């Protein structure tokens, strides 16, 4: 009883004052014994101790009774204040529960906010539910490694669009667009801008109204359409200073005058799937300027590159509309091999991003579970600690309901505070996430909404209430008498077991996260080991964006002009200090090509050889050397190779040589393209084009003089390539200042960017894993420390009997560690199960990779042992004499 009194007082006033009270109690006791006799004195002491417990717990002293009863506070408010006071006396406990819950809630709401903005929120079009995008698919492309990325992204031709627009009954409107680039001159420096071509129906169909002027009218579209331009808001702001008189004026696009007829509202994004496909972009939606669809294309222009929207008439289902589209197209005899699909616009954007977001959602969900488990462990531990106090209160007449209410209030405070911390962490988390620059679309839609915050608050409350109620539940399991007898007598069962189980579960979940993080990191490492086929270090690059017609309007003059320009630029670049070698290529690997070209092996016509598809690049002499692509046989191009118009020479890659000339040398063999024969003069090493994880595909390199388009310059330097990049820009501009430049970077940066998504995933899941480990360690520490506190008597006696503290530390820590081992074993099993679903994220590693599992188990095991041992060191603070005296 004396220990209980001391404990109660210590909780209120600290242990120093509690000891002082006991001394003063003893002093008065001895006075009573002297004045009233030993028996009366002892009776007084018993009474006094009982009164201390009663008044201490009943709130009789500290003025509580009179003051608060008198002030007539409502019961809840009184409990709330009492709860706050109780928690203030246990700051570490409160801090851990609140911090743990806040962290779990913050992480999960952060990820949920992203999922909400990216996957769930609808597109910013008018009545988006009625809109579908209309695409063709070519099943024969599906298994072609060169073309599979584009197999289901076949757009409509202009005449498809007009036919559909005129004949449809299922759609109330059809609108189409195409993305491209135009060069804007006469408004600051010449600049290459992302442009869109729109049918007159597009903006009204999507519900986009201009802030100034108008959009295109029916008739202002198609071949021969008037030169009209609708400016995007951002271009209007940046290049025209938001001047409203720009409407009606003329701007120069690709050297031709266009009349500005309107300005679109801020933030209009019309997603372009094809732009993303061909530019390896993820969020191609912002177009700086819009011009009429097909304004400069000839009649009968047959490219299938229009991206089409249809608005379903009320009551018309997708299947009915699809049947109509298929029928109309077949009736017009243009799409025999095409299978059409209708897809909601949002699906079009997010389809490929679901798995990585669900991965993050899963990881954050696990973290939340671990956080809840940790809070539960802490609350349960607290419940065990407080059983004595509560039992005493029940024994002294406090109603169970009253006590349950008080405990619930305390949990409510913890839950509320945890939710609050989570809500504060969420915007920080979202901001940090966005700052990491994840390769995800629709990030502009990511914002914290009230629904998400409400969900966060409810999660925190539910968790705290559920586990905070445990003390009340425990009460029903044990008789008060038994509890009073056991108070202060070593271990307590029940709640302790539940706590151990919770800890094991928590460690199990942490293991699952660690294993997943380990496997993702391992995949990233494997990816880093992949030889891309070139040496990226020391190579700087810059891309020219040559406006069409810049070097003349007919193909021949233009090609010659570009050829001369390229040679002059390369000459200047090679003369730059530190540059060892330089070259040019029509398109760099990473992001690389999506399409392939048709070649004939061994001839120039289908009948004279085998028709195959291979990737092809136009490269200048010196390109292979600059990139460090090894020449395995034959030779590189020379400037002298360029003059042959009716064919020429090509270099093939190793895969192509192996595949089509197995066992023999391809050198001297003929490859036909466009009816012209090309002689193979060299074989070079394979290069991974689009991603480190792809298998090399057959590739044909042709001479740069073939190409009449934009190109990238690459230069290898002895110094830092970063320093070289601006010099490359100067070199190009010294030759022709009218050429817009892009992609000024280093090859290393391009390669790194190609595995950005993998790095990002691995980083986040590892982050969640680290947080989970931290939480689990808090749990291990807490449970062990509590176990020491509960076993003070036993430990004290053992010490008095000569046990060494090191042995006792080991003994105490082992109790927790046994739970840890169970948790780790559970986690290993859980990891095997969970990672089966993650195989698509792994590269060069299997979901059951033993080393990763072993490393995760060892890491968590070692950390747990450390935390447990640290907590168990409290054993040394047990004073055997005191324990014996209290007995």
């Amino acid at each position, binding site marked *: 009883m004396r220990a209980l009194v001391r404990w109660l007082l210590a909780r209120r006033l600290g242990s120093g004052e509690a000891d002082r009270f006991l001394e003063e109690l003893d002093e008065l006791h001895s006075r009573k014994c002297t004045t009233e006799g030993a028996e009366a004195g002892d009776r007084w002491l018993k009474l006094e101790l009982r009164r201390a417990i009663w008044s201490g717990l009943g709130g009789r002293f500290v003025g509580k009774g009179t003051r608060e009863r008198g*002030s007539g506070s409502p019961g809840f408010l009184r409990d709330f204040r009492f709860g706050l006071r109780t928690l203030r006396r246990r700051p570490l406990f409160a801090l851990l529960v609140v911090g743990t819950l806040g962290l779990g809630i913050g992480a999960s709401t952060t990820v949920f906010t992203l999922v909400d903005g990216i996957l769930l929120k609808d597109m910013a079009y008018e009545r988006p539910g009625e809109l579908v995008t209309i695409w063709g698919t070519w099943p024969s492309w599906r298994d072609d490694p060169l073309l599979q990325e584009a197999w289901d992204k076949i757009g409509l031709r202009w005449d498809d669009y007009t036919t559909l627009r005129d004949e449809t009954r299922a759609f109330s409107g059809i609108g189409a667009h195409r993305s491209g680039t135009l060069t804007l001159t006469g408004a600051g420096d010449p600049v290459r801008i992302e442009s869109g071509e729109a049918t007159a129906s597009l903006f009204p169909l999507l519900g986009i109204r201009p802030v100034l002027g108008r959009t295109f009218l029916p008739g202002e579209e198609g071949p021969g359409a008037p030169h009209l331009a609708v400016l995007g808001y951002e271009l209007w702001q940046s290049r025209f200073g938001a001047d409203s008189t720009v409407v009606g004026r003329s701007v120069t696009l690709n050297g031709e005058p266009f009349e500005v007829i309107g300005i679109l509202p801020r933030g209009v994004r019309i997603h372009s799937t094809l732009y993303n496909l061909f530019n390896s972009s993820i969020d191609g939606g912002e177009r700086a300027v819009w011009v009429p669809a097909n304004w400069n294309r000839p009649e009968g222009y047959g490219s299938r590159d229009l991206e089409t929207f249809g608005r379903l008439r009320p009551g018309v289902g997708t299947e009915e509309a699809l049947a109509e589209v298929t029928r109309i197209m077949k009736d017009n005899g243009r799409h025999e091999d095409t299978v059409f699909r209708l897809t909601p616009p949002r699906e079009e954007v997010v389809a490929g991003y679901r798995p990585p977001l669900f991965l993050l959602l899963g990881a954050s969900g696990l973290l939340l579970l671990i956080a809840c488990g940790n809070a539960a462990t802490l609350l349960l531990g607290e419940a065990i600690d407080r059983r004595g106090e509560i039992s005493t209160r029940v024994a002294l007449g406090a109603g169970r309901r009253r006590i349950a209410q008080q405990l619930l209030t305390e949990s409510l405070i913890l839950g509320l505070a945890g939710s609050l911390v989570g809500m504060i962490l969420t915007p920080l988390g979202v901001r940090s996430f966005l700052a990491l620059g994840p390769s995800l679309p629709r990030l502009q839609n990511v914002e914290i909404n009230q629904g998400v915050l409400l969900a966060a608050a409810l999660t925190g409350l539910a968790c705290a209430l559920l586990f905070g109620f445990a003390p009340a539940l425990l009460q029903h399991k044990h008789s008060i008498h038994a509890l009073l007898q056991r108070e202060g007598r070593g271990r307590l069962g029940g709640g302790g077991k539940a706590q151990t189980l919770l800890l094991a579960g928590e460690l199990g979940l942490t293991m699952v996260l660690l294993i997943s993080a380990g496997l993702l990191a391992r995949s990233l490492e494997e990816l880093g080991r992949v030889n891309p086929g070139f040496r990226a270090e020391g190579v700087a690059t810059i891309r020219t964006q040559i406006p069409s017609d810049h070097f003349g309007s007919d193909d021949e003059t233009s090609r010659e002009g570009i050829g001369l320009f390229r040679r002059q630029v390369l000459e200047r670049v090679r003369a730059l200090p530190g540059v060892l070698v330089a070259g040019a290529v029509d398109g760099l690997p990473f992001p690389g090509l999506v399409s392939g070209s048709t070649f004939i092996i061994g001839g120039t016509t289908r009948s004279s050889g085998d028709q195959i598809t291979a990737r092809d690049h136009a490269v200048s002499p010196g390109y292979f050397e600059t990139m460090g692509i090894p020449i395995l046989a034959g030779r590189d191009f020379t400037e002298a190779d360029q003059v042959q118009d009716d064919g020429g020479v090509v270099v093939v890659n190793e895969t192509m040589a192996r595949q089509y000339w197995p066992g023999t040398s391809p050198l001297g063999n003929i490859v036909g393209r466009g009816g012209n024969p090309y002689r193979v003069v060299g074989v070079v090493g394979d290069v991974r084009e689009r991603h480190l994880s792809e298998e090399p595909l057959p590739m044909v390199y042709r001479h740069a003089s073939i190409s009449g388009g934009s190109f990238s310059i690459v230069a290898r330097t002895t110094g830092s390539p970063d320093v070289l990049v601006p010099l490359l820009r100067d070199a190009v501009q010294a030759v022709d200042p009218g050429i817009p430049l892009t992609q000024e970077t280093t090859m290393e940066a391009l390669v790194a960017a190609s595995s950005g998504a993998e790095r990002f995933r691995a980083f986040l899941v590892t982050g969640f894993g680290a947080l989970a480990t931290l939480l689990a360690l808090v749990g291990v520490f807490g449970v062990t420390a509590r176990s020491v506190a509960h076993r003070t008597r036993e430990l004290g006696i053992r010490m008095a009997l000569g046990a060494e503290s090191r042995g006792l530390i080991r003994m105490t820590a082992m109790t927790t560690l046994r739970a840890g081992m169970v948790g780790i074993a559970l986690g290993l099993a859980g990891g095997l199960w969970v990672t089966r679903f993650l195989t698509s994220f792994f590269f060069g590693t299997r979901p059951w990779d033993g080393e990763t599992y072993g490393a995760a188990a060892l890491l968590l095991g070692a950390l747990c042992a450390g935390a447990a041992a640290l907590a168990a060191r409290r054993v040394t603070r047990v004073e055997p004499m005191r324990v014996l005296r209290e007995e």
Partner: protein
Amino acid sequence: MSRDALGDLEHQVLLTTLRLRGEAYSVSVVLEIEERTHRSPAQSAVFIALRRLEEKGLLRSHLEKKSPDSGQTRRYFEITPAGLEKLREMRESLLGLWDGISAELDGAS
């Protein structure tokens, strides 16, 4: 009743502390109250009331060694000007209530 009004025990402890003039701690206060009121307050209640009154600014305390060669200390309390003011207030309000009813009480006894 105002928020900082005193309970009965606190009132008694405050008066007793004044009476003990610097010698007040739980033991001396309990003995003094017992002697003067012939009722025995819980020592723990007195102990806490002293600290509570200190929290309210009505008492102040200092630690002193029990004896010059002892390691143990004792916390002594004394009244503050605010405590004195509080007692004055209470005396006035109680006297106001007592005013004019002495005759009935005396007559009844």
